[in-house]
């Protein structure tokens, strides 16, 4: 005992500093807010235990743990497929071993802000698909709604259970340089990533059991139960509710997640070809006969859900599904037509919508946004292309955007032409220095930019499991966290008080 205590004292590591000591030798603090270090290089108190543990472990040991974690992802089949040279290779989505830590106090504010925001967005959706008060009152331009490619005329006048159009929402938050969380984007259609949140927790808890236990981390493992309860609350009756997850199939990059959620909830995972609609009711084809389905958690985009109403070339959907929905015989979550509210142009209006519907001030800010449809903004954007990020309104996943400071002169010139040709299609925002968090890179710990996507569930009530998916831009200096463009993910720890 005595001897062990002495040895421990001798081995005690003094606090390593960024830019000087291993493993933080290459850790660069710049004007971005850093999750672990304050601007003067001091470790933030809630990160102290992790900080110390990392300086105790050798680079080899960290590498070994990182590999064990990648191996585990590969075996679980948490992969996406890359096609090249007629060869299909399976790759894992890179996962970083080091958790991103958020305090209980910060989280409480984020949680309140997200609930406020989703409440307003659901009221907005109900409004534009029924009375259109918000348009009559001139809060938001009609053309922005009726001109949106995600507006679904077919949804007019359809009653949605609990007024919850968006049942699963993944909101992207980033931290400004002053450390405040702001909303970058609302994902109201079929947001994905929640399985990575849960899988990351699984492997990181195994990699740092001691730090995890000592830190006191709020649990997230009940997400599937919460999702199930949310879906159940949408059904017209509560006995024997039959729920299914609708997936586009094994070739979809999020198939792992669809199967994972179905398995964790204990519900059927169906493809469009498993379902038939008869007399406006939806059935799944089972070995024993047809089985009625009451609630569909669909992971198929609006366009593909019913070839009779939307895209007729869709083989993923179910002919007649929309009529069954309209007849009230099946609930589809999320409702159709929610994409109109996560449009990047509508985004700019969300603070006004919160004030309009709730008579409250937004708890979480938006990122400052210039609507290129307004001529004053357009000239400002054109004059400042080198410092702005310009995004196409209807796109997501990091496509159709220009990151001004990182683009060449020629790229900016070309983009300016596109902007002038179709200003309504673009918005611009200042480049935000997303906060940085310690990330394991080649045997050392370096700063990489991160965002945070919490998952919000809305049915009879609104719930959010603490934390979410932290996405990380693995290339040094990069601000693009999308997995389609070189991003990875991290576990997110929301601490108990």
């Amino acid at each position: 005992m005595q001897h062990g205590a002495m040895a421990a004292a001798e081995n005690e590591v003094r606090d390593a500093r960024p830019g000087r000591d291993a493993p933080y030798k290459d850790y660069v603090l710049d004007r971005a807010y850093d999750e672990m270090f304050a601007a003067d290089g001091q470790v933030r108190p809630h990160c102290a235990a992790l900080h110390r543990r990392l300086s105790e472990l050798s680079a080899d040991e960290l590498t070994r743990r990182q590999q064990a974690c990648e191996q585990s992802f590969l075996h679980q089949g948490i992969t996406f497929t890359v096609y090249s040279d007629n060869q299909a290779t399976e790759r894992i989505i890179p996962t970083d071993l080091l958790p991103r830590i958020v305090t209980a106090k910060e989280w409480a504010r984020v949680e309140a802000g997200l609930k406020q925001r989703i409440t307003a967005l659901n009221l907005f959706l109900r409004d534009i698909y029924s009375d259109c008060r918000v348009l009559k009152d001139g809060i938001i331009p009609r053309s922005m709604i009726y001109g949106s490619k995600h507006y679904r005329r077919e949804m007019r006048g359809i009653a949605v259970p609990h007024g919850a159009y968006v049942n699963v929402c993944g909101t992207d938050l980033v931290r400004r340089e002053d450390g405040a969380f702001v909303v970058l984007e609302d994902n109201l259609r079929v947001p994905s990533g929640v399985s990575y949140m849960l899988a990351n927790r699984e492997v990181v808890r195994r990699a740092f059991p001691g730090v995890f236990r000592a830190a006191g981390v709020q649990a997230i493992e009940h997400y599937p139960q919460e999702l199930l309860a949310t879906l159940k609350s949408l059904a017209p009756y509560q006995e024997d509710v039959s729920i299914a997850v609708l997936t586009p199939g094994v070739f979809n990059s999020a198939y792992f997640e669809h199967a994972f959620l179905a398995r964790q909830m204990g519900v059927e995972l169906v493809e469009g070809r498993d379902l038939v609609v008869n007399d406006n009711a939806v059935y799944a084809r089972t070995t024993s006969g047809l089985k009625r389905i009451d609630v569909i958690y669909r992971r198929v985009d609006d366009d593909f859900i019913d070839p009779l109403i939307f895209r007729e070339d869709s083989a993923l959907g179910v002919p007649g599904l929309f009529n069954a929905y309209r007849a009230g015989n099946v609930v589809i979550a999320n409702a159709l037509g929610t994409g109109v509210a996560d449009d990047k142009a509508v985004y700019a209006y969300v603070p006004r919508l919160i004030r309009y519907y709730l008579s409250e001030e937004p708890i979480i800010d938006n990122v400052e946004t210039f609507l290129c449809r307004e001529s004053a903004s357009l000239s400002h954007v054109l004059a400042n292309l080198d410092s702005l990020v310009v995004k196409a309104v209807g796109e997501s996943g990091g496509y159709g955007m220009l990151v001004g400071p990182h683009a060449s002169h020629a790229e900016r010139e070309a983009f300016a032409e596109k902007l002038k040709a179709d200003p309504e299609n673009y918005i611009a925002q200042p480049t935000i220095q997303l906060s940085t968090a310690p990330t394991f890179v080649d045997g050392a710990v370096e700063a990489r930019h991160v965002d945070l996507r919490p998952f919000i569930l809305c049915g009879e009530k609104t719930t959010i499991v603490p934390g979410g998916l932290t996405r990380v831009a693995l290339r040094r200096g990069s601000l693009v966290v999308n997995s389609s463009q070189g991003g990875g993910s991290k576990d997110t720890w929301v601490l108990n008080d």
Partner: protein
Amino acid sequence: MLSRVADSLYWMGRYIERAEHSSRVLAVRLESMIEQSKEDADRAWARVAAALSAEEFAGHSHDAFAITSALSFSRINPSSLVSSLRFARDNARQAREQLSTEVWEHLNRLYLRLQPVTVESVWVHQPARLFRDVLEDLYTLEGVIFTTLRHGEGWYFVELGRYTERAQLVSRLLAIHFGAQANPELVPPPKYVDWLVLLKYCTAFEPYCKEHTAAIRPERIAEFLLFDAEFPHSVKFAIDRMREALAHVAPGAPPQRRALCERLAGRLKAAVDFGQIDELIGGTIDAFLVEITRQCEEIHEAVYAAYIAYGAETVL
């Protein structure tokens, strides 16, 4: 259970069985060729190629390397070991939410482990060992399936697939070894080692010896592999399991939809319950084995029509 998922589980069972059979036959064949003359070995390889329908992929050669290659790591041969494992895994992925994590990960690990392997890399150094290792993994997988899945409808679809495949694979091996009329050039000369190897292809050597002593007699071998009620790789055993599985799948289906499957399974069971080896060995064994295979296919069709691909309009 969703029809599509039942279909995937059924095929997963079939492909796992096919992979197990291929790796065992290859391991036994490679181990036994050392004791054979070139001529005997060539003939034995030709029988293996014929039993596993690999002649075309081996360029109709009797060469050990060519046939091993076609049966193991050929991506073109849809029945090769790696193809079978790929299809088994693809089907497992389709039915992922019905499988346990243990089953999926075991199968996935095995698949990933064999991805970079080529026949050339295996050939230089005790190739039989690799197939033995794979076989061990597949035996473990069978145990993981048995012990971590609920023995409900899904599990019975896996069983149905496995034993339908096994009944046909063993019948095919027997047909090649006993089918004098169909393949005269492949009929083994009455050599001890060929019969012994046939037993080993079916893991039957030790169980056979316990039953009949080491006195190797072709008609006793045929009887054992066809009619033994207790040996898991006999045709009768496989057919009994098929029939049992059929009694447990689609528990909610109405009797009229079950009727045909059950009748066909009963008829097939009667053939092996009341078959007599002395009546067959005289010359009708070929026809008998062809009939077994045909009836297995008929059951497969009936299962599809009743439970998997039925028209929705027929049940509304």
